[in-house]
């Protein structure tokens, strides 16, 4: 029991932070956001060279066997540095392939992902934004040696850059909940698969997908046909906790900027940070973001140990969704006028933390999971 980072973890964090300060300056972040490109290819290449795309993966495929928490710490720095690369969608899909894919699938896919040659995406959510697997209705029909997909997916992350997309679908019509779910890897340029970009608050790349009888070879099914429910939930949960890590990393940066600003900015003849009202806002900000961090770390640690972590993940996400934006809101308040101006950098973090709080489950939805996990739902 020692909830602080150990030396190795601190080293990982410090190196990632230093690298991203250098390689992901806000000018680059703004450039990618402005739409000249979907991500920064040079940064992606360097991330692969640093081995970041292989953390937690087997050495066999070029990875570095490390605890999942290391990946979480890396994502904190990705959030802090706002790295404009599709590492979240790529690794969310790749982790599931590593978990349940066949040896052959892993061999053909993972080295390419880890080496930075292949980008992935994952498609989970549908109309309504529900996070319960019961909401997955995209139909997959077995016909000969193909699955034929029909339906829609929403809020699909990094689809435009990806070569393939891991799609969660309902392969047994009439099945409910976790039953009859299949995960299948679909080429993003498949016939019948169209997509349209969703403009977002964070300026990131999300798409709506429309599957019009898209044929996918059965060999692309990841895991067992009809038996993908558990893996789909696990994929969602990893996506959620890595999203929390990014929120936490970005929030720390934004509140630190605010504390510095409060020390320097003067009003009424003294630094605004010397007013008790401002001091108490700052005390709250650090308390909230520290709390979000600890909850996130505990969930990461549980996943690292292979322990069930649904409760911890949803606890972290419910808390992050409410307190990280609240901390940044206080940061805006302390900055006042300039916080609303695009030219000033604070908003880059603010918009991301806000947008991330709206994705992968609301606080209401995650508290519903917490209520289930703490056993207060009457039978």
């Amino acid at each position, binding site marked *: 029991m020692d909830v602080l980072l150990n030396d190795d973890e601190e080293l990982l964090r410090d190196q990632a932070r230093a690298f991203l300060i250098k390689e992901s300056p806000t000018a680059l972040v703004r450039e990618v956001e402005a739409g000249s490109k979907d991500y920064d290819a040079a940064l992606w290449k360097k991330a692969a060279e640093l081995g970041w795309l292989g953390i937690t993966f087997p050495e066999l495929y070029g990875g570095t066997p490390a605890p999942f928490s290391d990946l979480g710490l890396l994502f904190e720095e990705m959030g802090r540095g706002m790295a404009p690369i599709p590492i979240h969608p790529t690794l969310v899909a790749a982790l599931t392939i590593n978990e349940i894919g066949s040896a052959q699938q892993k061999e053909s896919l993972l080295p390419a992902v880890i080496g930075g040659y292949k980008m992935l995406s994952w498609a989970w959510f549908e109309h309504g934004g529900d996070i319960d697997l019961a909401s997955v209705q995209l139909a997959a029909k077995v016909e000969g040696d193909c699955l034929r997909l029909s339906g829609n997916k929403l809020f699909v992350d990094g689809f435009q850059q990806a070569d393939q997309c891991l799609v969660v679908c309902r392969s047994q019509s009439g099945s409910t909940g976790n039953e009859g779910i299949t995960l299948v890897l679909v080429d993003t340029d498949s016939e019948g698969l169209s997509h349209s970009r969703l*403009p977002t608050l964070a300026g990131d790349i999300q798409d709506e997908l429309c599957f019009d009888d898209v044929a996918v070879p059965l060999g692309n099914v990841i895991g067992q046909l009809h038996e993908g429910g558990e893996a789909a939930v696990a994929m969602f949960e990893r996506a959620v906790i890595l999203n929390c890590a990014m929120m936490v990393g970005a929030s720390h940066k934004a509140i630190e900027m605010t504390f510095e600003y409060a020390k320097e900015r003067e009003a009424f003849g003294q630094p605004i940070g010397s007013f008790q009202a401002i001091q108490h806002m700052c005390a709250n900000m650090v308390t909230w973001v520290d709390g979000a961090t600890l909850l996130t770390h505990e969930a990461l640690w549980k996943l690292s140990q292979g322990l069930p972590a649904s409760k911890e993940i949803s606890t972290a996400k419910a808390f992050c969704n409410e307190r990280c934006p609240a901390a940044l809101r206080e940061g805006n*308040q302390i900055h006042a006028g300039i916080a609303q101006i695009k030219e000033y950098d604070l908003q880059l973090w603010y918009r991301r933390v806000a947008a991330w709080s709206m994705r992968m489950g609301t606080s209401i939805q995650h508290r519903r999971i917490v209520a289930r996990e703490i056993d207060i739902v009457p039978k």
Partner: protein
Amino acid sequence: MDFGYSEDNERFRQQIKDFLKANVSREFRAEVREMQGKGMGPLAKELILKIGEKGWIGMSWPEEYGGRNADRIDQYIFEEELVRARVPLNIGNFIEQAPAIMSAGSEAQKKYFIPRLVRGEVTFALGYTEPSGGTDLASLKTRAVEDGDEFVINGQKTFTSGAESASHIYLMARTDPDSPKHDGISIFLVPIDTPGITIRPLWTLAGGRTNEVFFDEVRIPKTAILGEKNQGWYIGSKALNLGRAGAMRYYTYVSLFEETLYFARSNPLGQQLMADEIARDKMAELYCEAQVARLFTLRSLSMIRRGINPPYEISSEKVWGPEFLVKSTEVVSQILGPYHQLWEGSELAPHRGSFPKRYVSAMVSTFGHGSTQVMRDAIARRGLGLPRGAV
């Protein structure tokens, strides 16, 4: 206590509704959407002039200044209907200087400005804030130096919203650098096209516009001063206080919630989301709090109508309302979830992507026109008589 509207009030409300129905066209709404953040389009300007002709701008002012001595409640109703019809003419904002002109202006200024404000021909941008200080107006650095019959102005203002379409700037500048901070300040009514004034846009997160305004050897006649020299702080404070009353501001605070309510009732996605009892509980909570915002405004109006200068009640409005707005955006974001991040440009985005825009612009209410911190100071000190601190 009387929480109802008289028959006269209701008749007047119907008149406004009829007018808006007749005069707010599809084309007008399209222009509003297109011009977002770019200032006022020709149809908007035309509508303001029409409203001005009706005598509804500044309708509660004295007749001699172009007003109609109308009941303030009618003015409240007018503003309420304007916002309810989602006509985003921030009339409240550019007439908030009128009370100061009426109380401190020269006869010539009153004669010139008030009728034109009422008719919508003159609009002011507020030139208070400077880069070095937001709420701390007393520390301002823009200088106005007397030179014969003129003042020469040098300095910079920032977050000067509406400067791009205003006819004048309501400028606070230091006229006596040696006086204590609050005392050496004056207010000037400066035509925005005076040589030496440069306007630079600042783009906001929601895609809207505010401005920096630079003054480089700007020469204005001495008659452009409002009230006595070096008394500008007191004139300005008063206008700021009076400027805070009215339906316009209240609706700024609650319109996001009202729009969400409309969405929850009428949009298929909204109804789907309202199937969740927890979401309904959150909406009901916001409803309760929105009523407090409305009632605080009605309380201030009731006091002003009775001739009472509210010691702290307007500050309460300015604490409760903005914080309600911010809270409501955050609560609604956790009801709409991923739909809430969708910006304009997608069919899927509810209300044409207005939710994330409102989310990021809500913050302005908590520091614009005096931060909620300063408002709480005022409630505690002016309202409750708590002492200033020694440390």
